[in-house]
Each structure stands twice: as C-alpha cells, then as structure tokens.
C-alpha cells in the first residue's frame, strides 16, 4: 500500500486537485474560525479578552508536534523503503513545522507577559517546546549542509527519528513537572475539560491550520518533483550536447 503513494506521477496527479482544495479549505476555515475565535467566542472569566490568543497559540502548538510526528513517519518510510517522495515530504514539512513552533513560542510569550507577569520561564513545557524548535532548525541546517541530496535525505531521516524522543516529553511535561503553563485540558484522560463554546472555535482553527499545512506541504513536494525533473532534463541535455 505504501508503494501506491510512492509513485511521483500519481502524486502529481493527486496533488494537482488536492492542493487547491486544501488551500481553499484553509481559506474557508480561517474565514470562519478567526472571527468566531477572536470576536464571537466568550471571553475568559479571569483573563478577559487576552485569552483569545489561545486560538492562535494552541493549534500552532498541536501541529508543531503533529508535523514532527509526520516527518518521523516519512523519515521511517524513507529509510526502510527508500522512496524519494518520502524524503521530499519530510523536507517540505520541516519549515512549516518550524514556523508553527515559532508561532507557538512567540504567541505564548506574548500571552504570558500580561497573564503570568513574565515573557519566559524555564519550565518543562516551554523548555521542551524550545528544544523542539531547535531540533527543527538542526534538521533544516543538516539538509542545507550536505551537498549530495540522497545522502542528505538519509542523514536527515536518521536525525529526525532520533528527535522523536522529544515529542512525548513536550506533551507530558505539564503533567510531570510543576509549571506555570496550564495542564492538559483537551487531550487528556477523562475527556476535555474545556467548555464547548471555546472548544468548537478551537477545533475549527485546528482544522484551518491542518488544511494550511497540507496545502503548503503539497506545494513544497510538487516544487521538489519539478526541480528534480528540471535537473534531470539539464543533465540529459548536457550529455547529448
């Protein structure tokens, strides 16, 4: 079944319609989610209006972890089955995940300044999220540093799998250590503890982020396929000249 997804031709035909669809979906979800989250959802009873940054901060955090998990899966496929499309997928996903992690850190810091009284604190959640951001940067730097693309893909895949150990640390850090950060309120045993009137716009924003990620991922992968075809055409021309 994995081989079905490995065919670049099939992927290009699929993404020719899937990418605009994802982009349109992202636009629609943001158009619904942002006004709902920022204007029409209830204000927090303690924090007031400043809690609305949660609708930008939390989905970015979720998908920073989710994108890295996807990269881990793609890296595993790349190492075991040697599908070049898996390499392209991991490489295209990395900058998006890094930006999501950056958004999470920056919006979290902006949120913490008025509510916690500090821009930053070295607790488990923030530290491990910063570590995730650094792992993303190291991954991107490794891709850029190695000239041979096949070699770079394999090394980056090994590095990505090594970094997977950080993901459970990030998620469970608020349960394991005492922290300023709020404990898990959505993905926890016993069900979500957040009120539906806030959970619904949050989920819409999460879907919007996901659609955006898929659109950008497919765009990146298509660009990689086109680049490889262009390079192959150049080499053919050079050989026959």
């Amino acid at each position, binding site marked *: 079944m994995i081989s079905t997804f490995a065919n670049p031709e099939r992927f290009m035909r699929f993404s020719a319609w899937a990418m605009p669809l994802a982009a349109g979906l992202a636009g629609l979800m943001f158009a619904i989610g942002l006004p709902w989250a920022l204007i029409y959802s209830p204000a927090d009873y303690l924090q007031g209006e400043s809690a609305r940054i949660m609708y930008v901060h939390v989905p970015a955090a979720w998908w920073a972890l989710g994108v890295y998990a996807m990269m881990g899966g793609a890296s595993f496929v790349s190492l075991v089955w040697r599908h070049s499309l898996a390499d392209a997928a991991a490489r295209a996903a990395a900058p998006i995940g890094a930006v999501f992690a950056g958004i999470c850190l920056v919006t979290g810091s902006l949120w913490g300044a008025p509510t916690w009284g500090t821009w930053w604190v070295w607790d488990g959640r923030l530290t491990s999220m910063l570590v995730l951001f650094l792992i993303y940067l190291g991954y991107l730097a490794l891709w850029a540093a190695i000239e041979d693309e096949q070699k770079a893909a394999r090394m980056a895949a090994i590095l990505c*799998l090594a970094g997977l150990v950080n993901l459970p640390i990030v998620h469970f850090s608020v349960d394991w250590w005492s922290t300023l950060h709020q404990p898990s309120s959505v993905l926890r045993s016993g069900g979500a503890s957040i009120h539906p009137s806030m959970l619904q716009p949050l989920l819409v924003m999460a879907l919007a982020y996901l659609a955006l990620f898929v659109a950008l991922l497919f765009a990146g992968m298509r660009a990689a396929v086109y680049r490889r075809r262009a390079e192959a055409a150049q080499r053919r021309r050079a050989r026959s000249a």
Partner: protein
Amino acid sequence: MSAHRGALAAVFRRDFALAWGAGGGAAAPVGFFLGATTLLPLAMGPERELLAAAGPPLIWVAAALAALMTLERLFQADLEDGSLDQLLLSTAPLELIVLTKGASLWLALGLPLALASAPAALALQAPPALIPAIVLSLGLGMAAFIGVGLVGAAVTAGVRRGGVLIALIVLPFFAPPIIFGAAVAAGAGFGAPFLILGGCALGAAALGPIAAAAALRVHVE
C-alpha cells in the same frame, strides 16, 4: 561479544591512543574545561554567597562545551583516510564498533574531565560533601554527551565546517543530562535527578551507536 573480542579490543586501543593525543593525554580538553570554568566566576562576580548558590551547576555548561569540541573530529579522520571502509569489513557489527569508540573516548576524555570537575566544583564554592555526587554525575553526563554526540558526529562527518552544525544538532539532546546533572550539582546529590541522569546515560549509550552506525553506512555507500 567474545567472538569479536580481538577486533573490538583493537578498535578500542586505536581510538584511545588517538583520543589521548601525542603525549599530551587529556590535557587539552581538560584544560579547556578548567579554563571555561574560570570564566564563569569572572562573569558572575566573586561574591562567595552568589557563587555557592548558583555556581556548581555551571560546570555542566563547561563540560558540554568540552564534549562538543572533542566530537567534531570523531569520524571525520576515519572517513577521510579510509579507515571507515576497513571497519565495515570487520565481522564485528558496526554498532558494537561505534560503541567501543564511544567507550574509549569516555575513558580517554570523559573520565579525566569528570575527575577534573572536583577542583572545578570546589572553585565554584560547591559544598565538599557534594563533590562525590558531582564527579560521578559528570561521569554519567559525559557518557550521555558522547552517546548523543556519536550520532551528531556520524551524521555530519565530511561536512565542511561541521563543528557549528554538530553543536546545533546535538545541543537539544544535551538538554536533559544538563538539566538533571545541574540539579545534582545544585544540591540533590544522589537523589532522583542522579538516577534520571543515569537513565539518560544508559539510553544514550544504548541507542546512540545504533543511529550512528546507520549514518556511517550511508557515508560508505
């Protein structure tokens, strides 16, 4: 293991000799470690109470930097002169060979550094009763640094100016040993952080060589 004893012993002796250096021994990394430790009170100010409160954990920063310096050339030389190809021809599994390299590096550099942390911690006003815990925790910490550093060095071998890249790649994985080792140096002694640090060291020693060997095989393809 016993079937490969000869091959692994040869790798161990060779890497120990290379790491130990031409007669200088562990002088260069240990000297760097002590020098970096000297910079810390110069930056913090010589007040004894402040140093006693915050100083001892900072030797972990110096230890991490010293470890980064030794990792850079770990596989570079082997890759360049063809020893890596020879190692792959051995009957011993590459993972065991890499583990042996890491062990020899720990013995040649990690252990002297851990022993040198005793005067360093005393200079940073650590309570003398805490010194055994600090020395042992740094021994474990260097094992964790080397275990993770093997992966970083293998993945970046052959990259020009790979030193900075290794640091960027490996630093996120240095964070857990530093966090728990610093807790030991801050007063926890042989308590829970020491045990977790031991877990980090064992995990790095067990898993690092596997990832490093996978990366080395890519180089030789």
